[in-house]
């Protein structure tokens, strides 16, 4: 329990640091929502008075940074992230509408990749130099090709040229689709169809890491005496493999938590390439439009999610490893 409490303490600290960093980092940025708005208002000859008024509104306030900071923190605690300057409406609304998509896409892809990759790693490691080892170079390729290139390749091959899957949007919004958001078959079908390619990209890019990591851990663990003991006991093969896998999975679990922020980075890219409408595209648009409240909101939500996943992984680790539990 104690370890967990300590970890929790760290997470609170990290969250606070993120909140603060978030505030000050963004104050450092040049440009503002103003120029974005002025650009949008082409076609009208704005009077200097209007420009001034808009500057007051969007050009960054003039009150002291400190008091801004406290207002910001105070608002955060009330769940108020401010108003998006590029999309209108509270940032919270943007997040509530877009975050579920991202979580659904990235979450499912990551979990599928983790589970499938780990299982594959276990099998490949167990078989050592079996024919499955041929998977390794392929896996290496996917692991090392940048997300962007991978996403583009996927979009071109399976989407644009192959035509197997749609490669833009979250579901079919075309005029003949007549889909209603909600838990109904056609809608979910469409969501799955549209999610396939981006999810595949996220999954493929990360699965290789799990396969290789798990294989290496498996081979390392199989060298442990207790695995040999399991074999010496005349246990069935799968039981011996299970003993090794059960121990090898522990480091994989901490790696899982570590890699989450990489996955997040990758999924932002994936969303952008596949025109997927989630917080990844949001943050890109927010950066381009100088929409700082939205940027802050997305950044915070992502950091909090990563921290939460890390904490969950910590808990899982403690539950799975009796040695960690002892310290706890």
């Amino acid at each position, binding site marked *: 329990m104690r370890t967990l409490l300590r970890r929790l303490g760290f997470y609170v600290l*990290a969250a606070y640091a993120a909140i603060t960093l978030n505030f000050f*980092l963004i104050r450092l940025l040049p440009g503002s929502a103003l120029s974005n708005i002025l650009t949008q208002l082409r076609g009208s000859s704005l009077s200097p008075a209007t420009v001034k008024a808009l500057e007051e509104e969007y050009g960054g306030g003039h009150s002291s940074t400190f008091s801004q900071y406290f207002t910001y923190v105070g608002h955060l605690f009330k769940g108020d992230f401010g108003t998006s300057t590029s999309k209108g409406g509270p940032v919270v609304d943007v997040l509530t509408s877009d975050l579920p998509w991202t979580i659904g896409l990235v979450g499912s892809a990551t979990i599928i990749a983790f589970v499938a990759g780990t299982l594959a790693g276990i099998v490949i490691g167990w078989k050592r130099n079996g024919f499955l080892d041929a998977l390794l170079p392929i896996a290496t390729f996917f692991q090392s090709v940048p997300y962007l290139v991978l996403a583009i390749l996927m979009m071109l091959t399976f989407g644009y040229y192959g035509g197997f899957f749609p490669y833009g949007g979250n579901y079919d919004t075309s005029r003949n689709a007549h889909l209603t958001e909600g838990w109904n078959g056609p809608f979910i079908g469409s969501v799955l169809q549209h999610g396939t390619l981006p999810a595949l990209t996220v999954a493929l890019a990360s699965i290789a890491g799990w396969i290789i990591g798990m294989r290496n851990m498996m081979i390392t663990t199989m*060298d442990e005496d207790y695995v040999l003991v399991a074999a010496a006991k005349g246990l069935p093969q799968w039981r011996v493999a299970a003993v090794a896998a059960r121990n090898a999975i522990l480091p994989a679990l901490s790696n899982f938590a570590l890699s989450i922020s990489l996955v997040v980075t990758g999924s*932002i*890219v994936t969303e952008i390439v596949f025109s997927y409408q989630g917080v990844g595209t949001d943050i890109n648009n927010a950066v381009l439009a100088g929409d700082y409240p939205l940027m802050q909101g997305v*950044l915070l939500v992502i950091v909090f999610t990563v921290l939460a996943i890390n904490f969950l992984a910590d808990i899982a680790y403690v539950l799975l490893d009796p040695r960690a539990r002892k310290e706890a």
Partner: protein
Amino acid sequence: MRALRSPKVLTGLVLLFVFALLAFVGPLVAPHSSDWTVDRIHHVPLAPNGTYWLGTDQQQHDVFSMVLNGGRDTLLIAFIAGLVATVLSVVVGVTAGYLGGLVDDLLTALANIFLALPGLIILMVIMKPLPPEDTANPFVIGAVIALTGWAWGARVLRTQTLALRGQDYVESAKVIGERKWRIMLFEIVPNLLPILASSFIFTVIYGIGIFTVLTYLGLVHTTVPSWGLIISQAISQGAVMVGQWWWFVPPAVCIALVGTALALVNFGIDEVINPRLTSARVGRGKGVTFRLGMTPVLRTAPRAVPATTPTPYAPTEEVAK
């Protein structure tokens, strides 16, 4: 250097060498400079032909020349990112691991926070305020990328340092009166080299990917076309939609190959760090399968013992007490 024998590592090294060469001499041997154009009027990219091996882009730049010119920045930036990140991770990781205590707590918390922050977003935010001179400077970009890429290495190095800290040779160095920094630098760091190499390569791969993305998102200011920039322009100018593959496939393939090459080399380093992985390779292709608990029996041993085998030892009742 047993790792060198692995065909994977060898392929990786050869590829890397080729690309490193390309980065160095590419700009020198490129038929044209990056801003050279075939003409100033046409806007339909030329397909690959005898003169322009990889065709031209919309502005009639020679793609082959751009690809040759584009490697240097990409590799340089990734390399610098790897270098800076590795140095940072050594400083933080080894210091935290070796000194322990409050320093460790603070540095570890710092690394963990950087781990939790999604690098790309931080970079988007950091790159924005940089003046154009800086976002065009490979050293600055590399350093900034490194800022988001050091934490993994630091964590691994810290864990490893914790293990090395207890080694007797560290204790022995203390006993002869070595100073702390010297112990860290001369006793611990050399033993971390394989891990450093691995984390360096990892960061370089990360650097290539993130630099490509940053260019793609238009956050990098550069006048020399990097591979990422070529891809980004091809996509924004609709090359994908009309199938002008020669414009974006070559740089994409270059990036993919460099990444793969690095990962292959990392394979070898992994085996140096963890020799057990090497033993997993032994016997491949020799008709021997190693399975846990089923040691293979290959009756190849020459009979060193002649037919007159000495009587196996069997104590007799009389001799036993």
